[in-house]
């Protein structure tokens, strides 16, 4: 792809310092008096990926939030080397701002150059919408804008919650390319999704295996 070549030449936002690593042991999450999962253990080193599978409502999003430090773990431990980037259902881009300027808020915090925004937008095929306010974007376009935000984050660990939701076939292929390039650069991808993801050679973690049976539930 010509577009792809342009990106790899001028845009190197995937770069980050040091090899990433993410591990957790015996992770458990208690929400609203209910044990969502327990004993979740995995170990990811640079370049590896993990696909957390399971039907809706099982606690995939909670697992991601626990890993990101947004929810306390009921038990267990998370060890992360490198910064994290989180993509959940919230786009976190100011609706009234033009897309490129909304992304620049995050590039300023993440220490990437404003110029990288153009490349990242091209990577998700949104370059032509850089000046359009975020509120005018469609669901799929917002999702792609979110992926641009992740690829700009310079974080070693990508935590993606249902990254393929609302994306068409071409965009899912682009998502696969972004994740592959991130892993090739020594990054880690942890994605939770009920649907298949373009993640070659990824470990899978069926979260259902870690959901305790109702009678085994601990008192809240």
């Amino acid at each position: 792809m010509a577009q792809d070549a342009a990106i790899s030449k001028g845009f190197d936002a995937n770069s980050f310092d040091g090899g990433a690593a993410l591990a957790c042991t015996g992770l458990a999450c208690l929400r609203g008096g209910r044990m969502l999962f327990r004993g979740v253990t995995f170990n990811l080193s640079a370049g590896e990926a993990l696909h957390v599978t399971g039907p809706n409502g099982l606690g995939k999003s909670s697992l991601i939030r626990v890993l990101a430090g947004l929810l306390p773990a009921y038990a267990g431990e998370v060890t992360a080397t490198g910064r994290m980037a989180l993509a959940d259902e919230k786009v976190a881009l100011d609706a009234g701002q033009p897309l490129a300027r909304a992304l620049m808020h995050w590039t300023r915090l993440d220490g990437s150059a404003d110029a990288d925004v153009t490349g990242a937008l091209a990577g998700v095929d949104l370059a032509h919408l850089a000046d359009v306010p975020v509120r005018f974007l469609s669901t799929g376009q917002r999702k792609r804008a979110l992926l641009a935000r992740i690829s700009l984050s310079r974080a070693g660990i990508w935590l993606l919650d249902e990254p393929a939701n609302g994306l068409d076939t071409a965009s899912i292929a682009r998502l696969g390319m972004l994740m592959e390039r991130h892993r090739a650069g020594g990054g880690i991808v942890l994605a939770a999704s009920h649907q298949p993801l373009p993640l070659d050679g990824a470990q899978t973690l069926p979260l259902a295996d870690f959901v305790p049976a109702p009678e085994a539930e601990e008192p809240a």
Partner: protein
Amino acid sequence: MIAALGTLIRRELMLAFGLGGGARGSAGFVMPIIFFLAVATIYPFAVGPDAQLLGRTGGGVIWVAALLASILPIDRLVQADVDQGMIDQYVVRGLSEELIALAKTIGHWLSFGPPLMLAAVISAGLLGQSAEQLMIVEIGLACATPALAALGVMIAALTAGLRHGAALGGLLLLPLAVPLLIFGAGSLTPGSQNGLLLLAAASLLLTVICPIAAGAAIRAGRE
């Protein structure tokens, strides 16, 4: 850390002044100021054009109007950022909730304090205040508006996610702001120089404590 604080404040100002069309409605800082001027405008209609009465009570009206105006922006300060996922993203980047609250306080004050102090000049004219009285009001507002901004952010953080949070916010702010009102309006009484000192002390206390409380409230609200 300081660079991150600057970036956060920059965004708060961009939203408040409606640059590039803020998510919180364009130029959100205008409404409280218009409200403040409206209160000052209707007061003479209610009590009549007696210059002596206006001169004696006008300073107090400016203070009450300032307090009421500070309620208006509360509902847009924190809730929108929680809904949008901005706060989560800050936290994932290792920014503390207290730093977020501090940035919001500084950004809110910059879009609220100075415009209010400008509008107070107009109000003082409408309410027949002398130049000396206006000077004391302005010094008082300079002292009190950081505390009003900090209180606003704290209450916005506390009520984020609650239904009818906006109405509750007003009820919470008024009692907490009473010390500012008492010392601020009290400093207008001739021969009471201590009012401003006590006002500055009360304001300093609130301005320091509120971002810490707001940070804790944001953290607790994430559960």
